[in-house]
């Protein structure tokens, strides 16, 4: 088990290093310059470039950046003057993570429940209804469903605030919208996993022995169906916890999501690098944990 974990950690480190290197050079390939601005004279723009070290050769910039990275320094944002990339991550990631966590717990519980129901009532009306819901959840983007429920519950019914962050009632609508796609995905995956397990001999045996349907589901079907579901958990957690540009925008949430988009459009190189490395590392760590968990749950994987 220790060798397996060490191997996984080494692969994870190599992945992050490759990600940082590729992102650095790709971001430099983007046309444009963060300091180009028709309102600022070119002589002043040159001063700004020199201040941020962007007047040096790209390879030199890379070596300086990687040297700083090893020491944990992600640099200073170009757009948000005087704010370090770490400050930005430290301030906005907890908000996105909190929202994502609520959405994830909600989506996991509801998604698994719907998946189980669909499988148990396969090709009957509960299956059809829930699958329609699942398809709608995937098909309707948050940019459609978000403003709709905001208008309904925020403006018409006045049950919930239209936007903002901090109070429990401000979290309900965004968590629902963010979790909706995940509910739908989980419902479909859980249904497929359950259906694969239902036909197994040990399930038939349990039923033949007279075990109650609920016990069969809980003791045999659910436990074994969850193993393949684990594989999706790492990327899902990383994806949901890192924030959503659209949901944060609709509900005025100060999360990390918008920075992923804005950093690229404004060519804020340190922020592009910092966010990519942070997201990449988080994703790799989540996958690593899932891999280890998977190896623990199913020892055959470790041996392979």
């Amino acid at each position, binding site marked *: 088990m220790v060798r397996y974990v060490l191997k996984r950690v080494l692969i994870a480190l190599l992945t992050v290093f490759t990600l940082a290197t590729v992102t650095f050079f790709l971001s430099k390939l*983007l046309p*444009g310059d963060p300091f180009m601005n028709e309102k600022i004279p070119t002589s002043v723009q040159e*001063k700004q470039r020199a201040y941020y070290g962007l007047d040096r050769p790209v390879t030199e910039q890379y070596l300086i950046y990687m040297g700083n990275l090893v020491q944990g320094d992600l640099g200073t944002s170009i757009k*948000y003057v*005087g704010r370090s990339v770490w400050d930005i991550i430290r301030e906005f990631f907890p908000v996105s993570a909190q929202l994502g966590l609520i959405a994830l717990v909600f989506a996991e519980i509801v998604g698994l429940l719907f998946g189980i129901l669909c499988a148990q009532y396969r090709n009957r009306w509960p299956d059809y209804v829930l699958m329609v819901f699942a398809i709608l959840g995937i098909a309707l983007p948050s940019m459609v469903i978000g403003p709709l429920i905001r208008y309904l519950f925020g403006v018409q019914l006045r049950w919930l605030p239209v*936007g903002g962050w901090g109070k429990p009632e401000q979290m309900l609508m965004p968590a629902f919208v963010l979790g909706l796609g995940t509910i739908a995905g989980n419902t479909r995956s859980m249904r497929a996993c359950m259906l694969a397990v239902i036909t197994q001999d040990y399930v038939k045996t349990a039923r033949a022995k007279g075990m109650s349907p609920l016990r069969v589901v809980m003791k045999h079907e659910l436990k074994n169906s969850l193993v393949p579901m684990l594989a999706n958990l790492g990327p899902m957690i990383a994806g949901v916890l890192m924030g959503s540009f659209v949901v944060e*925008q609709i509900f005025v949430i100060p999360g990390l999501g918008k920075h992923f988009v804005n950093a690229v459009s404004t060519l804020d190189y340190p922020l592009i690098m910092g966010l990519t490395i942070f997201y990449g590392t988080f994703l790799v760590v989540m996958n690593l944990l899932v891999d280890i968990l998977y190896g623990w749950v199913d020892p055959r994987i470790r041996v392979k």
Partner: protein
Amino acid sequence: MKKLVSLILALAMLVLTLPALAAGTTLTWARGYESTSLDPAESADDESNNIVSYLTEGLVRILEGTLVPGIAESWEISDAGDVCTFHLRQSTWSDGTPLNAQDFVYSFMRLIDPEAGHSQAATGFCVLNAEAYNQGQAAPEDVGYRAVDDYTLEVTFVSSGLENLYLLADNAFRPVKKELAESLGETYGSDADKLLGNGPMKMESWLHESQMVLVKNENYWNRDAIQMEKLVGMCNVSGDTAVEMMMTDMIDLASFSDPTYYTQLQDLGFDEMTYTNTDQFIHINQNGRNEETGRFLSNVNFRRALSLAIDRTAMVNTVMQGQTPANRVIDPDAAGLEGRFVDEYPVENTINVTAEPEKAREYLALALEELGATEDQIPEFSMLCYDTQGNLTKLQAVQDMLLTVLGIRCAIDPQPIQQMIAKVYSSDFDFWTGGMAIGTVDAASPDGVFANWDVNDPDALFGYGNAEYAALLDTAQQASDLKTRLDAVAAMEKIFIDEVPTLLLTWQTQHVMVRPGYVITSVDASFGADLAFVQVQP
């Protein structure tokens, strides 16, 4: 019974939709995006500039469109018009410590510090030797600032223009406290505890990308003029979200240019204040993105044909709603000598607000004759824009008009913002759409419309060369009396309309929607309503 139910329902609707909260001394407003820096030397965007202007006070301030004393109680201008001596009032920073002339000299020199690379450094170049110092070609003592004593400051400008005092009202000329700025370095202005002001408000808290709370500065020299005890800025609130937050009493004030939004609030009884804030253009690169397109775009009759083919009224009715078709360069709100500029300086030939197809084709024929070209030799032109839905629909309309009226083909080239700017700098466009500020004083100001065609400016981008126009711009900027300046502006406008260096489409009007009871006393064409000076109706 039915009538009673209808009445109750109608009353319920009314109660639900009318602005419910009364105006108080706290005002919550919608901020479109987060401020990037509150350091006066770095504050570049509108949402940063607004806040800097609430937190700080310069030597002078522009209120209700007029230059008024700030920390400078009075000033004298030398006979030559290039030296201004300011007499400062006894005032303090918001922490109660005294503010003097040396603080201003430090702040102004910090702005142009050659080592710091501050983005707003160029604003300081109106002062003698400031640019040379910034470029490492002059010593600090050569720069035109001198603290005569604690409360007297002498500023020597590069020129003697009327502009100078207005330029000093810019946020870049706001003071920063030396001890704090030096201890914080580049992080100055990045957080609530990393700045210190001397303006009408002071920062209480700043939750980035979320909420900013400003409270009245009891140490402000003019505190009696401030009625607002607290200003709360809700960040990233615009469009639909702002409308819904106004409807549900979460905010009191928001600005819009799109009628989709402000008309809803008009119907609900919110108060409204409007002002013209930008001119909307499709710029012409007269050098062209290549020799072939430049050959046509540098021909004045070809440009006249383009302008005449555009139906500005139709555009306002369809893709640019809420704006006003521009029939001349100077907007109707611009001030003249005593009244409105447009009344005092009428023009004979105005810009066409509807398409004039026959005249357009006549000019095209004339251009082709001058160029020795035929219609089928006209190349396809490239229309560059920042990739937004609004820009795309606007350009699609113009693209269609040019094709229908003149048979000229254009391809739209949407780009992300920095890539678009890179293309502009490398002259890789034929047409480029965008807005342009009205100008601090007027169109001849360094940040105004006309300055973009200054042939003496190495950063002018559009390849227009007209010696008479350049001389007029120089006259306007150097003039020490308003009439000389406005005469030059009027003459430039005539050349502008005649030679069509750019395709002016509309004047964009901004609508500030506010809960009844709050009275906006001052707006700035660039930054909108001055919230620090909002009054409450008795």
